[in-house]
């Protein structure tokens, strides 16, 4: 057999690629986006996971924690001897007030001891600037990076803290991060408040004596040997520490920072899997249909090649090369963009997670998977397109595609034909003749609609939840927090103010809720009986008053404590008499915006004891008086802060609008690309298939407009069919996102607004019109003579 050089065939490939550059470009971009999404989102997620692992091993993140009243260090060896324990480190840690300028509420610092010499071996920290405190020095501290950043503290600055009743000026000699405090929330708060709360690391020899803890400890962290049974070790540790006021050991799974981080990572994993999977399959699908259609237009040329003795394999290879170029270029482009955006993604999340080092790790496996999927579907599409022509005897393949039996389809038989003009009938017949092709094109466009729906529904979900929260549950116009608890007579003073219609006082008590070994510090909030401004919203149709007895917990809090309605939790108040009581759980509600625990105020008064006081007030006011009242109340010396939930909502919505802008921008780009790839390619392919027919019509006196209607009408029908299908598909995509997210600590309501449906349709139609316009220009400039002289 000859070994052909395929020189001429290579030229054909290059010329065809150039000739089809518009179409190639559109599918290259679709592939690139698919690959990019995989590398950015999934690659970003995997990089974060590796960063987390590296961070944990660098700092020797413990496996088990327990806090206790006080134990002598001699207990350490008892803990070390527990089978399954591979390392033990004890610490002294205390919460202390900080004297921070410019704050209404006192600052808080969590003070943690580090060994007198060297760095902590277990449960370590990463020094980001400066150094550890000098061993002998008494006033040197390392502070958490976020606190330093929020307060603008630099090395050499000092911070005044009230340590065990004595004020002390501490000199900052370093900043650090620790995975135990990557998400640090002040006691009683819902969210991090870095300006007012920081972590301080001090030498044990300095911190211990300040609290009478020389030679003793009140916290222990343990490292477990591989294969050790966590539950067994936990029970043993509890038994050892019980005489020393042990509060129950808990594993990593219950460590707060780890929990939050894990929740975020889980969410990233879900999004980083669902979205790239959808994008990549859409890209693969498009690549397949576009290439197969494109290549089936070369039917006659395939016939010629075969007539002269090119084998099926040689013909197949030729078109495979075309597929390889399209998917290869897309993959390279997508890989470049994916690595670049992946870096940004990792930096964004890594900063939020407070990782010391942020690296985007390029994953060859991911790239290989993505490129295999795209190359595979491209190859399949190309071969399928070529095969239908190659399967025919060359004599038949070379005949122009047979004008097959056009007959009235079902629509026309229904009598629809009579009401349609001739052009309409031609469009209808052409669609009915190739129903599968029309359906596939419609499916492609439907993907574009569906991706838009899926992208925007998340904002609908969040907006819905915010609305539920602020319109139905949290109905006050202003929320006032007092600097110190005030006597309840303050109610009258507030009620007298001009424009105030309702005043409800509330009490806020920091408390530790404990169920089994799980615990969580929260601000317990008590609201008056029959409160009109705070209600229990189970869902939109089920709104209840606050129960007279028992706690109402937000779902997330209930899950963290692993309790449900009817269980009791152990409530330990952290201030005043520090009462410890058992309280039943009366209700668990989906509280979308935070972690909260509320109860009847009288019940709270009874449980916490002490005088009946108010920590703040909820006000309903006349709308026009709101801003004026806000300013006036804020000026009162007894007032720490005044907030307007409406303003919170507005801020939130503004932030949402920002992220919406970015996300929709991206989705719009991708969805538009899909629509263009399907519609533009569809019209271009029809143009080359029916070029002679259309050119003949033009020669016979049809106007450009009329010819364009024939060609683009088909695409218009496909687009219109695709929109409702895309809505359904989008709903299903959204459902799958909600389902996969729901298992984690975060939830989104499956609510899709009419606006989302509208926008998704409008964007898709716009992309269709744009592609139609490009093809229209092509029809306008069609060289009739050239089209009639040769055929593709």
């Amino acid at each position: 057999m000859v070994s052909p050089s395929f020189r001429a065939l290579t030229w054909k490939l290059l010329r065809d690629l150039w000739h089809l550059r518009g179409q190639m470009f559109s599918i290259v971009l679709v592939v690139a986006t698919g690959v990019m999404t995989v590398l950015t989102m999934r690659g970003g997620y995997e990089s974060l996971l590796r960063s987390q692992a590296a961070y944990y091993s660098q700092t020797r993140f413990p496996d088990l924690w327990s806090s206790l009243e006080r134990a002598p260090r001699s207990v350490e060896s008892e803990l070390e001897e527990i089978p399954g324990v591979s390392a033990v480190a004890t610490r002294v840690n205390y919460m202390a007030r900080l004297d921070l300028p410019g704050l209404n509420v006192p600052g808080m610092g969590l003070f943690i001891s580090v060994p007198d010499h060297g760095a902590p071996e277990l449960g370590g920290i990463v020094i980001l600037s400066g150094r550890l405190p000098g061993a002998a020095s008494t006033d040197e501290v390392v502070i958490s990076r976020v606190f330093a950043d929020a307060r603008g503290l630099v090395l050499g600055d000092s911070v005044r803290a009230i340590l065990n009743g004595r004020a002390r000026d501490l000199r900052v000699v370093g900043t650090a991060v620790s995975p135990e405090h990557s998400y640090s929330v002040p006691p009683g708060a819902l969210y991090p408040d870095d300006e007012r709360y920081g972590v301080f690391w001090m030498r044990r020899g300095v911190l211990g004596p300040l609290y009478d803890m020389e030679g003793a400890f009140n916290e222990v962290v343990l490292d477990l040997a591989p294969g050790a049974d966590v539950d067994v070790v936990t029970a043993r540790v509890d038994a050892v520490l019980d005489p020393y006021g042990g509060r129950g050991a808990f594993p990593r799974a219950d460590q707060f920072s780890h929990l939050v981080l894990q929740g975020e990572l889980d969410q990233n994993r879900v999004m980083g899997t669902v979205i790239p999977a959808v994008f990549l399959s859409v890209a693969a699908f498009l690549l397949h249909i576009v290439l197969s259609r494109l290549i089936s237009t070369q039917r006659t040329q395939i016939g010629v090649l075969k007539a002269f003795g090119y084998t099926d394999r040689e013909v197949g290879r030729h078109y495979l090369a075309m597929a390889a170029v399209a998917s290869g270029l897309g993959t390279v482009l997508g890989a470049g963009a994916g690595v670049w955006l992946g870096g940004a993604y990792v930096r964004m999340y890594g900063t939020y997670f407070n990782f010391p080092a942020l690296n985007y790790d390029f994953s060859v496996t991911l790239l290989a998977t993505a490129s295999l999927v795209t190359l595979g579907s491209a190859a399949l599409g190309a071969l399928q397109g070529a095969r239908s022509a190659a399967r025919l005897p060359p004599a038949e393949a070379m005949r122009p595609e047979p004008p097959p039996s056009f007959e009235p389809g079902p629509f026309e038989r229904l009598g629809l034909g009579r009401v349609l003009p001739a052009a309409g009938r031609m469009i209808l017949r052409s669609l009915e003749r190739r129903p599968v092709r029309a359906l596939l094109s419609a499916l492609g466009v439907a993907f574009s609609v569906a991706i838009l729906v899926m992208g925007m529904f998340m904002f609908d979900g969040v907006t819905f939840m915010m609305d539920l929260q602020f319109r139905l549950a949290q109905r006050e116009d202003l929320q006032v927090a007092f600097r110190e608890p005030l006597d309840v007579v303050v109610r009258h003073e507030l009620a007298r103010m001009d424009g105030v219609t309702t005043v409800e006082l509330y009490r806020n008590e920091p408390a530790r809720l404990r169920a089994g070994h799980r615990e969580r510090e929260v601000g317990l909030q008590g609201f008056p009986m029959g409160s009109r401004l705070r209600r229990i919203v189970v869902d939109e149709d089920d709104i209840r008053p606050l129960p007279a007895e028992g706690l109402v917990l937000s779902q997330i809090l209930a899950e963290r404590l692993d309790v449900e309605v009817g269980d009791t939790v152990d409530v330990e108040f952290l201030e005043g008499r520090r009462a410890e009581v058992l309280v039943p759980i009366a209700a668990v509600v989906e509280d979308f915006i935070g972690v909260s625990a509320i109860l009847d105020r009288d019940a709270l008064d009874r449980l916490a004891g002490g005088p009946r006081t108010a920590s703040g007030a909820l006000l309903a006011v006349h709308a026009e008086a709101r801003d004026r009242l806000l300013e006036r109340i804020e000026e009162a010396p007894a007032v720490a802060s005044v907030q307007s939930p409406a303003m919170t909502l507005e801020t939130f919505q503004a932030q949402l609008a920002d992220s919406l802008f970015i996300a929709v921008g991206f989705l719009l780009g991708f969805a538009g690309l899909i629509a263009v790839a399907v519609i533009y390619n569809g019209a271009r392919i029809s143009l080359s298939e029916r070029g002679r027919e259309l050119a003949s019509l033009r020669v016979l006196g049809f106007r450009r407009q009329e010819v364009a209607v024939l060609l683009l009408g088909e695409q218009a029908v496909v687009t219109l069919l695709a929109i409702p299908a895309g809505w359904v598909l989008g709903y299903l995509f959204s459902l799958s996102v909600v389902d996969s997210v729901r298992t984690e600590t975060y939830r989104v309501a499956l609510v899709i607004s009419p606006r989302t449906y509208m926008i998704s349709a409008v964007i898709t139609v716009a992309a269709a019109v744009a592609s139609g316009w490009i093809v229209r220009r092509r029809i306008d400039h069609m060289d009739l003579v050239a089209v009639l002289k040769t055929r593709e």
Partner: protein
Amino acid sequence: MTNTGRAVLRARGLSKVYRMGQVDVHALREVDLDLEGGELLVLLGASGSGKSTLLNILGGLDRPSGGTVHYLDEELTGLDDDDLTDYRRRHVGFVFQAYNLIPSLTARENVALITDISSNPMDPAEALGMVGLGDRVDHFPAQLSGGEQQRVAIARAVAKRPDILFCDEPTGALDVETGKKVLTVLDQVNRETGTTTAIITHNAAIARMADRVLHMSSGQIAEEVRNPSRASVEEIEW
């Protein structure tokens, strides 16, 4: 006489039926035909009489509904697709009624496309020179007239030095002068290289240049005429 007298292609009882819905179109009915080595055969017949169908089957472009075709000792009708491809690749050259050039390739590249897979081809430029297109080698089909495209198609067919050359109305679209040029080339190739050649035409005058003339009618060979001597192309007028 280049005719060796030995049959290179032997068709027996060839029939071809196209099923068009309820109606069967009998394009060929029980055709027997021997193509003799080195001869120049002309096929005449009314439109729709089955000429193209017969040629396509002999050239391995299509399969008959019944009957057999042998190339030398090999039965083409029994070959699978790969072997049929191989037959076309090694032995056959085509000139199609519709020129069927690849629009994305220049004249030279269209010829090279075929010489690339031939064992003993001419230089593409030389083949184009033979059909008088030496100065148009770098033109694309769309830049050539119909007759020029047809000549490229002929250059493409002869450049591979096929054993058998099938031409379906090679002069149909050409003026007399150009038509003569094309026929001269075919005649010359047939005489000089002994390429067995079969030409379909509507032009009865052309039949004078053939060794043998077949008249087809309704899918059958109605008449066979053997010319006592072949006229040279210059002598023919139409």
